[in-house]
């Protein structure tokens, strides 16, 4: 019991720090590509709306990037501090992948980010655009390495076990493991969708306050196009990802579906809602739709999906948690598709810029992408349990041997620090959002400008408080 509690605390701590962290990179990934598109459009059309939007969002990008660096520092150490058994067992694979991620991020920050954030007046337009594009690509390369590492933990291959430890044999097989392409696509798109709804909500907030300017309209429109096109693509990718999971991690699917046993030969229904009970081995208060489970997961009307009871008790992921986290993700995904379609319908005669009800809906949906992203990660990570490396190492063998007192101390510390520090950071980002896009005045570099620091956050000069109000 004692051990279990320390293990639980280690898991909670890791979940807490990584969940907090992932919010920032997700927005970084999305905004970097958004900025590249904005700058590209400005260079192509010379429409200053794009330029003003670029400067507006690049400030928010800078603060967000800074938060990501600070919270990422902790992540580089959490694998060892909390999971030393895992580090020794699988570090030969996950370690080099993480090294690549850090090198990529370091390279990015060292080189192109400075030009992107501080070089507007100092380098040529083409070179500046190149830097922005490189930053956008760089964030995706970072995603590539981290997702390769995580996917390998879900569907490991390309290795041998020597002396009880993982020995990499084929790096191509390791990186391009079976779930990697699906997870990478799903995550990258999730970052785009989350950013689109963040941008859309920011625009909606301004429109609702009567700040109906060209740049605000433009970003509202771009966010809605993004929602319309990308949210349905995400549903298709998610479906493919689900089929891949069914093939490689059937227990996860059974737990997501709250599906305990297969009746003889009949098709599997879809449990729409219910409360899976791990002890009683059934889903209470289940509302089922016949055939739908088979239809969604096997794309047929008669094939069955695996049931939880066909797995030994100690190999079952917690259905109560991931049944619901999955539904939160999928439900929000459908709402996002709906918002995209509604936006399209309201586009005629520019109604979309006047319809306050719709704008309120978009504002409300602002955090939906990030919530769905977190819910999705909870689903796939809790769904991997009880394994840390699927089928190879159990989570309780992965943990460092800390006492409950140690784990509670550090967890409390993290909660206090994250909540105080990052609340200020996020508050600051919101303040920047509330200022809205401003016309950008081109001015030649002053003589002393070489002295300007080149850190992400110093790209932003606005005060923390003394909020400026529009109207």
């Amino acid at each position, binding site marked *: 019991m004692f051990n279990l509690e320390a293990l639980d605390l280690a898991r909670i701590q890791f979940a807490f720090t990584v969940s907090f962290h992932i919010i920032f990179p997700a927005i970084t990934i999305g905004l970097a590509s958004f900025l590249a598109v904005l700058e590209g459009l400005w260079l192509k059309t010379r429409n200053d709306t794009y330029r003003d939007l670029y400067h507006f969002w690049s400030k928010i990008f800078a603060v967000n990037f800074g938060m990501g660096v600070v919270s990422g*520092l902790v992540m580089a*150490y959490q694998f060892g501090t909390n999971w*030393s058994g895992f580090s020794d067992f699988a570090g030969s694979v996950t370690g*080099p992948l993480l090294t690549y991620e850090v090198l990529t991020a370091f*390279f990015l920050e060292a080189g192109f980010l400075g030009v992107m954030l501080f070089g507007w007046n100092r380098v040529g337009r083409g070179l500046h655009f190149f830097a922005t594009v490189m930053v956008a690509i760089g964030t995706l390369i970072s995603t590539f390495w981290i997702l390769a590492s995580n996917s390998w933990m879900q569907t490991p291959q390309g290795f041998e076990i020597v002396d009880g430890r993982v020995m990499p044999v084929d790096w191509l097989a390791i990186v391009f493991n079976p779930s990697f392409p699906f997870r990478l696509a799903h995550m990258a798109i999730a970052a785009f969708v989350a950013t689109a709804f963040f941008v859309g909500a920011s625009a909606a907030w301004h429109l609702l306050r009567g700040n109906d300017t060209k740049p605000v309209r433009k970003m509202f429109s771009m966010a809605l196009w993004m929602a319309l096109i990308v949210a349905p693509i995400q549903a298709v990718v998610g479906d493919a990802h689900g089929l891949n999971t069914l093939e490689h991690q059937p227990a996860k699917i059974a737990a997501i579906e709250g599906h305990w046993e297969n009746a003889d030969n009949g098709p599997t229904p879809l449990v729409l809602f219910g409360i899976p009970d791990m002890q009683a081995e059934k889903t209470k208060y289940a509302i089922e739709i016949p055939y739908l489970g088979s239809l969604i997961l096997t794309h047929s009307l008669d094939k069955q999906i695996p049931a939880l009871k066909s797995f030994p008790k100690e190999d079952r992921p917690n259905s109560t948690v991931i049944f619901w986290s999955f539904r939160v993700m999928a439900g929000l995904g459908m709402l996002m598709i709906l918002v995209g379609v509604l936006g399209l319908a309201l586009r005629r005669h520019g109604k979309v810029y006047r319809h306050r009800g719709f704008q309120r809906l978009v504002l409300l949906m602002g955090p939906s992408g990030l919530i769905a992203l977190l819910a999705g990660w909870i689903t796939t990570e809790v769904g991997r349990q009880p394994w840390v490396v699927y089928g190879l190492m159990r989570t309780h063998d992965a943990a460092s041997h800390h006492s409950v007192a140690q784990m509670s101390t550090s967890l409390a510390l993290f909660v206090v620090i994250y909540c105080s520090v990052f609340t200020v950071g996020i508050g*600051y980002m919101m303040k920047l959002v509330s200022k809205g896009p401003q016309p950008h005045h081109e001015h030649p570099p002053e003589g002393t400008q070489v*002295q300007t620091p080149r850190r992400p956050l110093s790209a932003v000069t606005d005060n923390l408080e003394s909020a400026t109000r529009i109207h």
Partner: protein
Amino acid sequence: MGIQGIDLSLIWGVIIAFGVMMYVIMDGFDLGLGILFPLIGDEQERDVMMNTVAPVWDGNETWLVLGGAALYGAFPLAYGVILEALYLPLIFMLAGLIFRGVAFEFRFKAPAEKRHLWDWAFIGGSLLATFSQGVVIGAYVAGIPVVDRQFAGGGLDWLAPFPLVCGVGLVIAYALLGSTWLLVKTEGMLESRMRHYSRPLAWLLLAMVVVIGAWTLQLHPELATRWFNHAHLTVFAGLVVLAVLSLFGLLRSLRQRHTHWPFVFTLVLMFLGYIGLALSIWPNIIPPSVSLWAAASPATSQLFALIGALFILPVILMYTFWNYYVFRGKVRIGDGYH
């Protein structure tokens, strides 16, 4: 071990040692500023102090991330065991660095009446991070017991006199780095006050080095045989002579009101101490019992990660030097931070 005669573990050992040294030296002086902060009450002078490192501090910290990731990739056993053994001081260090990093940014953006809160976050974060790093180094040198590839000590082993004294020692060392850095970067009142502080800090550091050195030999009597045997005595003596010369040079250059030499001599002192430490631990990566090669990941892992490192590290180094070059020169009161 190696591929075609190349000792990958050795290469990675050198890369990580280099990365950690870059970190200790470069983040050392900007953490030192936080330690010196309480001694300077004037808001404008505090602004100047922060401005001297504003362009570089976050790049400095990135070496710490790189060190952690490289250790994970090349020596996963060491990564797991050391981070488990030194769990709490490392968590405290990270906590301190977070506070300090964010304070750095938001201090300049905070309204005047709230600025002192961020000042305290900066001071507290710098002190906590530095002291914890010293504890980490001390506990690491004292030794981390490993049995069957697992940490075999207790979670509070680091809470012992030796690591705690090392914590104090590092606070003094970073303070000296910080004060001599400010001699390079500032002028007027601030510079002369730093000159005033540097001398006692140098003597204090000497005292700490002697105490910690003697204590280390007492903890590890085998080190005495290593250092004082015939083959190594010249190296050891050479390090000691160089250190004494550097200290002498430091005190002399302080007296003669040089601006750059005190910092250079302090850097040399830190470097010599670091080399001494590395040579004492060699060839272990988890002292006292696990060698570089015993903790290494398979050659394929080390080679795979090395390819990326060899491409990217030179670029990072070039950028780092360029960054320091661009922001060279004194920082004056009222100089634009933004």
